[in-house]
């Protein structure tokens, strides 16, 4: 990601507070994606993301500018995600992954970051390859915060049917992304 002052290289150094702010802004999307990996079933992660950013800001003096930003940020995000899940589980009995698996996901996600930029670029082109009604379904699912049940009701289909359509669309997009990346690598 770009930012006012930084590119998205995770190894970049931030030597000043303005640099820290810029790094935080630059990696906003990365933190978002990390939280989605930990809590894929949570539709609204805005509050949690704000909490993570605030925690990072409050601990900015501890940040070693010579080290990559994202792994440092991920540690905060993981801790806040755990607290968030535990609280929701206590309050409403919401199910979630176990703590050890969250650790595994966090660890694996750092490695996965290596190809993230290319994947995001490829996604745009792949979205254009979908049929209009497929794009519309994707938009309805991801642009708003309507539940799948609501979407199914308004579309006149069963939730199971809609889930299956989304599953196939996800698969089509991922296959397209993989093909695009492989083609680029081959050239």
């Amino acid at each position: 990601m770009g930012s006012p002052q930084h590119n998205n290289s995770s190894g970049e150094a931030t030597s000043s507070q303005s640099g820290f702010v810029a790094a935080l802004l630059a990696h906003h999307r990365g933190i978002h994606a990390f939280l989605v990996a930990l809590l894929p079933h949570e539709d609204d992660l805005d509050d949690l993301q704000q909490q993570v950013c605030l925690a990072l800001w409050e601990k900015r003096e501890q940040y070693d500018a010579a080290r990559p930003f994202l792994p440092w940020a991920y540690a905060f995000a993981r801790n806040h995600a755990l607290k968030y899940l535990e609280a929701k589980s206590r309050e409403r009995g919401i199910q979630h992954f176990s703590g050890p698996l969250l650790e595994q996901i966090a660890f694996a996600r750092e490695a996965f970051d290596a190809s993230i930029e290319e994947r995001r670029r490829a996604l745009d082109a792949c979205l254009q390859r979908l049929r209009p009604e497929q794009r519309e379904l994707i938009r309805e699912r991801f642009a708003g915060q309507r539940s799948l049940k609501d979407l199914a009701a308004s579309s006149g289909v069963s939730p199971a049917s809609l889930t299956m359509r989304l599953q196939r669309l996800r698969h089509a997009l991922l296959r397209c992304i993989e093909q695009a990346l492989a083609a680029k690598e081959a050239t």
Partner: protein
Amino acid sequence: MTSPPRSRISVPLPSPDADLFTAICTICDGQPTRADFDRLEQLLQDPAAMTVYLAVTELDASLRWKLRGHTPWQVPADTRLRLPGRDVPTPPQAAAPTPRVLCRKRAAPRQAAPPISAPAPARRPQPAALGSVLRRVALFGVAVLTAATIGGGIAYVSVKKSPIPTVTPRPRLPGSIACVTSLHDVTWSRDAGNDAAKTSPHPDLFASLFPGQWLALDRGLVEITFDSGARVILEGPIACEIASAFVARLDRGRLTATVVKHAGVAASPRFTVETPTATVTDIGTSFGVAVNEAGLTDVSVFDGLVDLLPRLAGDATGNSAPAAIRLATGEAAALTAPGKISRRSARGPIAFTRSMPKGSPSAPTGPSPIPWDTARATTIYRDAFQGSGQLAGSSPSRRGGTGDATWTAPATQWDLTDNGLIASSRGKASLPFVPQTGRIYRLEATVNVTAGGNDWAAIGFSGAAAPDDPAMTAAWILQRHSTDLDPNLSFFGSDAQNLRLITGDSVTGRRTLTILLDATQRQWTVTFLADGRPLGGGVLPAATQIASICLACQGQATVSCDDFSLLVMESIR
């Protein structure tokens, strides 16, 4: 900018119906059970499965990010107060006001505005002085008339009973097409509307409203007065877009509209309320429109005539939709299904709120609020950048523009051409400028970022401006060459510590970027627009220092700009 090359992680994608893929999508889409989590946890012990899982969640995150946007990161006010060396007092928030505002043209001659110069010493408003005025106003208790000149007009605040609201009128911002003229018991919503609506400060009394601006309420009443003369009451819960001076788009909820034609606007288009399933056009009337969760429309006419035209989803031509029907006083109609109208008595199940609650001042009947009058604004700087040589050291007036001050800019690759400025080296160009209290400034530029990937051009207000650093410190808006990875952005704040971020949009190409700086109130505010549509804004921290206006080029971007201007509206005091 280009990131260092990295090895790609190949995702071993299973078939779409494979257990693993189904298990992952069940977690992502549904309300997963404990058994669903346990099943996936078991599968994810395989590293290849974990890679697939990460690819799916990254896809979901990207789609959410692109299609939904996100709440910008902001350092909360109380946290800012604790920052080292930044003990900036935050003034208390004004109590939620419920007065009605009358904005009408003034017959008396306007006051002469003080001379405009740039740069000039900045002077922030004094809260004590404002408080004194308000206290004196409160002594009258019954009726207050506060006049504020703006472009030859006056804004009146009429308050009939105490408590006296702690607000002062403020002029309309340039480009706006409506303003908030009354509020009652409002709880704003963050869950509806577009990104700008979700991330911007909520409109308060007198707030200017722009084309494309969404208003979303969970509860309460908001009265909007359009430049067309329409006065609309939004009743929460509601989500509504102010599309133009003549069009409101009601996504859900209910509103009432009273359209009064005034001299000079008789020939204007008719006021229209668009809903997901119908278009409701006023024929000089007062009416109510409601949209339910299914998008179906209900219309009641209180007075006059209304045309109701059903629309069918996906039918751009409307050919297959029924013809419009005309409703008269006391009549009502509802769409029971898309395209299917059912007439009924206006005494229907929907109780529209036709006026603001008692206790508010009486309904104004004057013409529309006072718009920004560009003809009366004064140009401080204007530069089309046409010429030859480097920008640094040159002045706009030397090229036939406005402003004698010279540009501070990078020494190379900021070239003047017959078609305007071409900037292709990192840094920013700046002109000296210090805003003054009591005025509205419009900084605007037409930019096109023709290369540079995720890198960008920006315009903005800044403190001390270093030519080699494209970042600014007060309020700025950036436009990227490509928004594949990130949207365009806007920033405001007193410095890096107080920097706040607004997510912009994903539009690329040649665009007009605008920042409105309203220094007429105790708290200065900024509003960001791109091609005239609002992206958001907010209150500048009290300590914000502005000493320059800037045009910036980041990283590998190539930026062309052929119109850069700073205008000021005359003082309202």
